């Protein structure tokens, strides 16, 4: 009888402790998720709002290149100039929503409209939750990069379908000064780092203008761009979407260089995105299979009369898995 009598309160006590612990754990994980979202928002705002210039070392696999980046926020209008310091001469100038890419050796200028939808101030509660459900978000102290004090944060994936992301952000302004993508084996897939940086300098507007005031007459002007997308049900089903990726866009896109409209579906886990493009197959398309450029992987496969291309900042196996699971509904 004594046993029974004391067992009940003990069970209740245990349950109560369980509830308190669960609440604490949930509270802690929610706080961590919010911390991750806040950090991402600060970093993306800093990149847009601050004036800065510096030298960037960019590494993709074994390949290392250096660039000069200048960014000016002129009363809300963004100007950006990126110039290659080694290898073939290349220059990219963005003013507002137009990007011009100058390739002097090829005598080509590409002019493209560019829209960037900054997702961070408006991440959904689900996406914020996914960030820490599928990545371990950790702040791992500080360091110095390009003479500046930085905070280090890490997003470590909990499965093999994503890369690990390590970021070094300027402690006082939040500007990203170094970023690294690592695969499952801890190998560096891609990295960029400022080797010197000047934060909030007075930037002369001339320094963010193209080196060519007008396009030289013997240059070729190529106009392109991602075209307009009309959001709609495309009739396509993606079978093997990795957990934690939610659909953020589905629509039909008219690309300037393509005769047929292209179905475009985007999934995101809050940190990266995966795009699925489906277009009618034509005999001129030969790029079947896997292509990798640093942190971007692309897999193209044929599905009956259609060409399916999956592109994203994820490991090759992930884009391949998705590409092979796309089917007509």
């Amino acid at each position, binding site marked *: 009888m004594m046993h029974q009598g004391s067992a009940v309160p003990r069970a209740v006590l245990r349950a109560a402790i369980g509830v308190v612990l669960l609440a604490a754990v949930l509270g802690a994980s929610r706080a961590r998720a919010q911390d991750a979202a806040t950090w991402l928002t600060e970093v*993306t705002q800093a*990149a*847009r709002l601050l004036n800065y210039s510096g030298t960037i070392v960019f590494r*993709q*696999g*074994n*390949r290392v*290149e250096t*660039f000069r980046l200048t*960014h000016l926020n002129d009363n809300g209008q963004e100007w950006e100039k*990126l110039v*290659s310091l080694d*290898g*073939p001469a*290349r220059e*990219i100038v*963005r003013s507002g929503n137009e990007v011009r*890419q100058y*390739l002097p*050796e*090829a*005598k*080509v200028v*590409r002019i*493209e409209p*560019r*829209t*960037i939808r*900054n*997702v961070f101030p408006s991440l959904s509660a689900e996406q914020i939750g996914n960030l820490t459900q599928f990545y371990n978000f950790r702040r791992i102290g500080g360091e110095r990069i390009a003479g500046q004090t930085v905070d280090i944060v890490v997003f470590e994936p909990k499965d093999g379908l994503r890369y690990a992301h390590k*970021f070094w952000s300027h402690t006082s302004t939040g500007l990203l000064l170094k*970023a690294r993508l690592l695969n499952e084996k801890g190998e560096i897939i891609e990295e*960029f780092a400022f080797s010197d940086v000047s934060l909030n300098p007075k930037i002369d507007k001339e320094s963010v203008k193209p080196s060519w005031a007008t396009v030289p007459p013997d240059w*070729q002007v190529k106009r*392109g761009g*991602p075209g307009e997308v009309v959001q709609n049900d495309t009739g396509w089903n993606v079978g093997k979407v990795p957990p934690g990726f939610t659909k*953020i866009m589905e629509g039909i*896109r008219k690309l300037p260089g*393509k005769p047929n409209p292209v179905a*475009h579906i*985007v999934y*995101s886990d809050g940190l*990266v*995105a995966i*795009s699925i*493009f489906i277009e009618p197959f034509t005999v001129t398309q*030969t*790029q079947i*299979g*896997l*292509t*990798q*450029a*640093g942190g971007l992987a692309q897999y193209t496969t044929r599905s009956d009369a259609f060409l399916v291309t999956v*592109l*994203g*900042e994820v*490991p090759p*196996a992930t884009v391949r*898995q998705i590409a092979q699971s796309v089917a007509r509904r």
Partner: protein
Amino acid sequence: MNENISRLMDGELDDAELDRCLAELKSADAMQAWVSYHVIGDHLRGTGGGARGVPARFAAALAAEPTVLAPHARAHRPAQPATFAWAVAATIAAVTVVGWTAFSMVDVPPNAVAKAREAATVRAAQVKPPAELPADYLMAHQEYSPATAIHGGGTYLRAVATAGAEPRP
């Protein structure tokens, strides 16, 4: 089956298919296909003789990728030899391990299967050079990717890093 062997060599099989394919490789017909395909593979890598009787699929792949393999073309793509060498090394690793597994014709030790799977996966990941991703798709993707907002001006690094390959007029 032959298609599966071809897909195995392309590193396209998923884990379940790979297990089935390795099991089927114990048959004489499958081995014949396996050997033929590797002879073809040797031709593709320039380590074999003539290319007589190459199946259409490989002939097409060969036609589509000569610039990657031909030494004179590498001069235009200075950044690629290291990656290409890596791909070849990975291919040889895959062929060696999988080839030994298949030729042994006896019960395949599980660790060999694991090694073969790893090698096949590595090869799939490295089989193509860091190539020109279609610019229009990349732009359309970057419009929506959170990575774009995180990297700010750094986003264009990817675009210019591959832009060096713009053909001369």
